[in-house]
């Protein structure tokens, strides 16, 4: 009852529904009308596609940094002994998903618009209204909002697992709070930070809904380009090629994570 064969059903499932479909994408990206071609990849070299990729990386990077800066203190507060109630925290973070994410992102649109709730509040206290929507700022906000939980959870998890005696030892040896944080807590929490960074960066890099709902359609990211190939242009070959380029980025991050051992050292999601 406790053998590795227990994993076989899953591995077969994964082979059929994860590995084979990815191989199909590889196939479609290299074949056009039945013959081998690299045309689909060449097409991506147009400067506006490259621009879109660079912009996607920029925006995903900025939102990851913001998520990290906001999530780390939160995770520290939550992992404090007095506040520890893992289940409730997990629930609070996961519960918003019970309200459809399309609807929620849509709702931010009406909260943030020029005549929206937030600007009306600013006006009421005699402040100048701010244009939040329709641009990079709004897209970054949407990314941070949607993917924030994936940064909090892993960091929170590693912080909970740090042995308090290590921190005490550091104080006993005369280190102040900042030094203890820098020399003890931060290095020990690195696996969680790495997991968090990856879990935020990847979906942010590839979103197509957030740009559409909050970016006012002015920003076309790599996800939008893929989506367009499959739903509007019907150009499966090019869509697959762009997907492959993204998958290569995924695999590089995966290799990076395995190397850092963030998966095994408690940097998991839960």
């Amino acid at each position: 009852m406790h053998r590795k064969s227990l994993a076989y059903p899953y591995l077969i499932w994964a082979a059929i529904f994860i590995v084979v479909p990815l191989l199909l994408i590889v196939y479609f990206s290299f074949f056009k009308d039945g013959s081998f071609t690299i045309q689909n990849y060449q097409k991506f070299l147009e400067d506006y596609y490259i621009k879109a990729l660079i912009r996607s990386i920029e925006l995903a990077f900025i939102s990851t940094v913001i998520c990290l800066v906001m999530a780390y203190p939160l995770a520290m507060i939550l992992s404090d002994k007095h506040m520890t109630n893992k289940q409730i925290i997990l629930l609070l973070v996961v519960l918003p998903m019970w309200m459809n994410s399309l609807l929620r992102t849509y709702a931010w649109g009406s909260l943030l618009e020029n005549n929206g709730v937030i600007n009306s509040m600013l006006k009421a206290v005699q402040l100048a209204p701010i244009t939040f929507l329709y641009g990079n700022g709004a897209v970054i906000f949407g990314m941070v909002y949607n993917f924030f939980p994936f940064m909090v959870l892993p960091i929170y998890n590693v912080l909970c697992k740090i042995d308090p005696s290590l921190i005490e030892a550091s104080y006993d040896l005369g280190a102040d709070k900042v030094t203890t944080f820098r020399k003890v807590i931060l290095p020990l929490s690195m696996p969680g930070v790495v997991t968090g960074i990856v879990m935020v960066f990847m979906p942010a890099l590839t979103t197509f809904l957030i740009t559409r709902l909050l970016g006012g359609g002015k920003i076309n990211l790599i996800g939008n380009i893929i989506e367009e190939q499959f739903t509007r242009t019907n150009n499966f070959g090019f869509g697959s090629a762009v997907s492959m380029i993204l998958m290569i980025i995924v695999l590089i991050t995966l290799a990076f994570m395995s190397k850092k051992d963030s998966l095994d050292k408690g940097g998991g999601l839960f």
Partner: protein
Amino acid sequence: MKKLTKAITMLITVSLLILSLAGCGESKNAITVYNWGDYIDPEVNDLFTEETGIKVVYSEYANNEEMYATVEPGNVNYDILFPSDYMIEKMIKKDMLQKVDTSKLDNYKNIDNRFKKLPFDPEDSYSVPYMWGTVGIVYNTKMVEDVVDSWDVLWNEKYKEQIFMYDSERDSIMVALKKLGYSMNTRDEKELEEAKKLLIEQAPLVLAYVGDEGKGKMVNGEAALMVAWAGDAMVMMNENPDLAYAIPKEGSNYFVDSIVISKASKNVEAAYEYIDFLCRPDIAAKNAQYIGYSTPISKARDLLPEEIKESEVAYPKDEVISHSNMEMFNDPSDIVELYSSIWTEIKASN
């Protein structure tokens, strides 16, 4: 953690209860209908089932291309679809539709002659018109002082960051082509290049390229000008009396969404009954009132409330519609890649 177990068990019980109440028995006599989102009065399907005993399995899509992408691989069988003009042309070419014998439809005679023998289906052998409309400019009379009668207003620096364009390559390029005086169905690469430059030039003035969310924002006074369908304009003007609608003098797009029977349909008889039902004046009127778009059936139009029936937004004068600069889209299959790269380039210029 136990509470979670209980929570989940309870949730499952509750949902199973709801399921059993809703009753999802598959009856043999059923048709599958694939329509635009929110493009029918929900009561109509129930009425149809009540009258004929035929169950309606109903699904929705967001745009023609999405519908096509779902239907084309052939492993989903829909009976009834509601493509627009150019998509019907494409589907006829691809042999995806069944011929419709209009003599078998008692209510087909109700359809105005203006909507028969349209260019995408010149013999009326595949499609029955469902709704139609025009594309124009919705503007806020409190924010726009100029007379709005031309696409030029969308390039006026005065309205910087007060313009909503439609987030679709075809509709936006249409606007630019029309402003330049070209046909919106042009295949001339030079003309398309000009249109692209024009749209790149316009990009800094545009507040956003919107989908539906633009409607609520226009009503709210978020922007002054918006490219919109007449049916949506009706809904917006109803909510905010400061809004008005104009079809630019350079011409525009007018579209017809029609009912067709998919080649894969197995229940053709029921499909005929469904189409006939939708063409009945009282049912067509119910739909037109719910959706806000214009019905091609005059008898149905007569049943509508005065303010809709007489509206020149929903039912523009014949001379406007029949003018040669009002065009319908044709099948874009041959230029879809060019359009897509033009659109990416416009977006990348931001």
